[in-house]
């Protein structure tokens, strides 16, 4: 009897969940803002993606730009001007009509220096005012003081605000609107009744009534709740969790292939760092860096650490980035012979089991990483043995994250570091802050007053040229050269691109996880919980 009651209660619970037609997944942190122009963190970015209506959207699956609130657009004047033709008859979630005035208002807010909008940074290419002109309620012209790289793509992160609505940023044009926020517990997004998009059969989108974003930091708990059926999606699984889930729920897991993220090693090349001069000489030698890169067996990393869910990396562009990849650059071979040849070329020699430099110093250095990251610890153990074959003694040090950041960005008291880089943008302009020698994120030798080497000067020039050009093919040619130089100079050793691993509950329909963020819910308006399949794109 008790079993029956329990079964009835359980089924009624499941039914209730289905009846609510609610999608549930986790945010890893508390959202810091609901103002779409002030978004910096991942959680706020997810909410902006689900609620914000944009003029142009990057399709996460095809990696092509698609018109949303803009039916047409044209970039001209070498990336200084963009003309939009706006969709007619669109209304904000509170019923306020959408027009060119809203685009003008959003752009003015975005570029307001007092607001410090992170999304606005990409448009600030030169000093001066942005001109916004409405030639009709459905036509807008935006002119920037300087050329903006990948101008159309930058609008993917600009959610249009209402100029007239008293609800200000709460009035949205995206598929969902903010329903309820309980700090520390959840954010509830409700269906936007005025959302403009319809499916091929004329059904109003989104299919879902609501999305419940549970705030949950603990990955193990998240996985447990997914297995219990309390969550419908899990983004960014690590390989171990993926395999564990795969053995229990093989139909729920999705390996979308290599992501844009990198696992990299770089050496401290800063002239003023508190390192002995001979070590700085090693780290500033391209032969030394390339030898280390050659010795690391990336295939073993992919197989052993990532259980096959990663791809050996060749450079700063993942194979997932279809357009910008320079296919002529291949991952290092993992050959000890090649590595030793490079070292000998720079005056290093073997003495017994040790490797000595030309002055007789034993080659020994440390590599730091963030403590508690099992993937990094295993990668370091593999690198340690790979380098031991060359006679190099590698001391592995796991530090808590704040101490690691302190060392690599303030005191510069480190020798080498293994770090993961999260890359969310396909366009190379997003990497300007890494490759420009004057950039603070030029991590191995940050904020150089003038380029300290000829190759860095060349990379500066090529990056500026690709950034100012509007011809995609020219930009590609420039960035191909950058990738070639980076492969030759190895300022960063690119190890692997981890795969985009996710899980989707079997009752979620139309889910096609992509490698780009947000992996599983990029097409949230077409996701459906249970019921007959309404439309598949």
């Amino acid at each position, binding site marked *: 009897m008790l079993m029956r009651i329990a079964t009835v209660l359980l089924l009624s619970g499941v039914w209730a969940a289905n009846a609510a037609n609610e999608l549930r997944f986790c945010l890893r942190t508390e959202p810091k803002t609901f103002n779409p122009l002030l978004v910096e963190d991942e959680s706020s970015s997810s909410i902006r993606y689900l609620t914000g209506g944009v003029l142009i959207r990057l399709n996460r699956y095809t990696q092509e730009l698609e018109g949303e609130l803009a039916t047409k657009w044209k970039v001209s004047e070498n990336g200084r001007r963009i003309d939009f033709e706006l969709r007619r008859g669109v209304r904000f979630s509170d019923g306020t009509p959408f027009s060119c005035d809203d685009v003008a208002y959003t752009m003015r807010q975005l570029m307001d220096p007092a607001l410090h909008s992170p999304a606005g940074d990409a448009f600030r290419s030169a000093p001066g005012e942005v001109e916004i002109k409405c030639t009709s309620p459905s036509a807008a012209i935006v002119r920037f003081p300087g050329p903006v790289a990948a101008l159309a793509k930058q609008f993917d992160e600009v959610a249009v605000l209402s100029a007239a609505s008293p609800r200000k940023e709460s009035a949205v044009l995206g598929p969902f609107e903010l329903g309820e926020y309980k700090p520390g517990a959840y954010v509830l997004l409700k269906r936007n009744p005025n959302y403009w998009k319809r499916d091929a059969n004329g059904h109003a989108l989104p299919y879902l009534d609501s999305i419940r974003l549970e705030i949950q930091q603990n990955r193990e708990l998240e996985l447990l709740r997914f297995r219990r059926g309390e969550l419908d999606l899990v983004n960014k699984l690590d390989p171990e969790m993926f395999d564990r889930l795969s053995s229990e729920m093989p139909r729920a897991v999705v390996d979308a292939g290599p992501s844009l993220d990198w696992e990299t090693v770089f050496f401290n090349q800063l002239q003023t760092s508190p390192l002995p001069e001979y070590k700085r000489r090693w780290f500033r030698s391209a032969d030394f860096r390339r030898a280390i890169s050659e010795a690391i067996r990336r295939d073993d990393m992919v197989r052993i650490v990532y259980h096959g869910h990663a791809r050996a990396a060749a450079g700063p562009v993942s194979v997932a980035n279809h357009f910008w990849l320079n296919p002529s650059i291949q991952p290092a071979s993992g050959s000890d012979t090649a590595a030793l040849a490079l070292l000998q070329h720079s005056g290093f020699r073997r003495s017994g089991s040790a490797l000595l430099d030309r002055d007789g110093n034993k080659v020994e250095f440390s590599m730091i990483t963030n403590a508690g990251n099992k993937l990094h610890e295993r990668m370091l*153990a593999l690198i340690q043995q790979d380098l031991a074959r060359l006679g190099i003694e590698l001391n592995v040090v796991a530090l808590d994250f704040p101490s690691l950041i302190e060392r690599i960005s303030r005191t510069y008291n480190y020798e080498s570091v293994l770090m993961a880089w999260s890359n969310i943008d396909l366009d190379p302009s997003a990497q300007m802050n890494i490759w420009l020698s004057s950039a603070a994120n030029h991590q191995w030798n940050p904020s150089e007053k003038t380029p300290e080497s000829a190759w860095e000067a060349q990379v500066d020039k090529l990056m500026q040229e690709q950034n100012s050009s509007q011809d995609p093919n020219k930009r590609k040619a420039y960035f191909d050269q950058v990738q070639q130089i980076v492969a030759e100079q190895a300022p960063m050793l690119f190890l692997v691109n981890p795969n985009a691993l996710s899980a989707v509950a079997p009752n979620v329909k139309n889910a096609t996880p992509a490698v780009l963020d947000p992996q599983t819910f990029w097409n949230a308006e077409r996701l459906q919980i249970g019921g007959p399949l309404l439309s598949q794109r």
Partner: protein
Amino acid sequence: MSLKQKIALAVLAVAVAASLAAGWLAQHSYAEQSREFISSAPSAQFWLGTDELGRDRFARLLYGTRVSLLLAPAAALLSTFFAALIGGAAGYLGGFWERTVTTGIDLFLSLPWLFLLLAVRALLPLNTSPVTSVMITFLLLGCLGWAAPARIIRAGTRTLASSDYLVQAAAIGVSPRRLFWLHLLPNLRPILLAQFWISVPLFILSEANLGLLGLGVSEPLPSWGALLRELENYSAVLQNPWMLAPAALLVIVVSCLQLLLRTEESVAC
């Protein structure tokens, strides 16, 4: 000593002897990665199978036992020494000194240990070999672990200091220094031994906890803490129960130490 305690002592002796003879007993080095045999089951070649990097679990267990079983008592000795010095002096001197030390102990015990260890570990030089790093880890544990035993030793000293034989010794003119070293300290021995034995499993578990955070012993040197980290993957544990060997050994060793501890406690009483 009861039969149980004799067995416990024998088990501990076997564990220590096996760890010291690791070079002879293990067929592989603890650091050697057989990358073609990752996560393999026990076999004639690898008696306890291999870990996720293809390293021999048996060799790592023996060397890990050596690290944890030799360094934990060393750290316990150090912390008991500091505790005896500080707690003993406070209890013996009494008055202002006792109040100051007691306040100091309370303050020290209220410090967030884990964060303190994280901070101290982060300040250490990066180019330390794994052996040095493990010694530093236990040295830190030893230096930071004196406060709780010091409180007990202070109380014990206070009781002894007011005992008749010490009062009489002081009355016949024995110097305070002689009283402390010759009459007080030898009588504190059972308490000190009990504190020492309590500290040993405590430090073994502390290192294991630090290892779980990835802040214990550096790669490739094994320790029980490092070996226990593998148990986080519970589904792998269910499929490969031999992964539980370090946990089982830890339980056995700590249980044996607890059994031996009872001898010391009974002597202390």
